């Protein structure tokens, strides 16, 4: 009985580890899909004699961690014969990830030729301009501020 329960515990432990590794491998495979060319270039769209191929940049980040542990109850002398040793295993893990995507350009193919039309993100530029203006304003204020009166 004692041996049987120990074997089943080891089996469940091994199964848990296998399942976790499987989940981790699947997640990594999905994460690595972001490195594929198809993730950057969309499906071509044809409209009459014009073919459009959208292009975007993809940034993907992933991180995870896991841990397992087990233990058994410390029995005092004489208790070992009374019953089976109590034993337990446990484990846990967690992770997170994020995928960012931003359109960069559109490839336009016509019978006359192929050209790359850039996609300009006005919101990003406005934010950058505000940040730069704030930085410059802060520097201006710092330069024009009167010196503090010294304590006498």
């Amino acid at each position, binding site marked *: 009985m004692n041996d049987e329960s120990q074997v089943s515990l080891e089996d469940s432990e091994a199964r848990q580890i296998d399942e976790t590794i499987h989940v981790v491998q699947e997640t990594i495979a999905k994460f690595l899909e972001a490195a594929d060319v198809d993730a950057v*270039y969309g499906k071509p769209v044809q409209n009459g004699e014009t073919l459009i191929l959208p292009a975007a940049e993809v940034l993907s980040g992933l991180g995870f961690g896991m841990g397992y542990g087990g233990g058994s109850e410390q029995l005092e002398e004489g208790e070992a014969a009374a019953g089976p040793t109590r034993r337990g295993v446990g484990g846990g893990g967690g992770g997170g990830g994020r995928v960012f995507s931003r359109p960069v350009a559109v490839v336009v193919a016509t019978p006359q030729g*192929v050209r790359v039309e850039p*996609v300009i993100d006005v919101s990003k530029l406005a934010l950058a301009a505000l940040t730069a203006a704030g930085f*410059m304003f802060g520097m201006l204020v710092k330069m024009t501020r009167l010196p503090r009166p010294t304590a006498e």
Partner: protein
Amino acid sequence: MKSNAFSLENRIGEPVKFGDRQMIPISQVLRIQPPMLNLGLVWNRPASIVVRQADGSEQVLPVIDVTRRYQWSIFAAGIVFSAFFWAVGRFVKIIKEKIA
């Protein structure tokens, strides 16, 4: 299998046929996977389009991220102007001290 912590490579996609032309998309992938840490980062961006004509001639069209270029230009301008204001402020302060 040995894998590098950092890798930068160009990847070639499936050619897109359009009339008698072929367009071959190429992307640039930066991959960061520290070996002892369970984390990773993949940055994939369009690099260029190779247009292959029916006569076999090829033309490479770079895909430029205009938004990013403008963004860096604005940040650079902010830093340059701030440095200029700082230099002018220092100069004025030195002149005032000399006059006083």
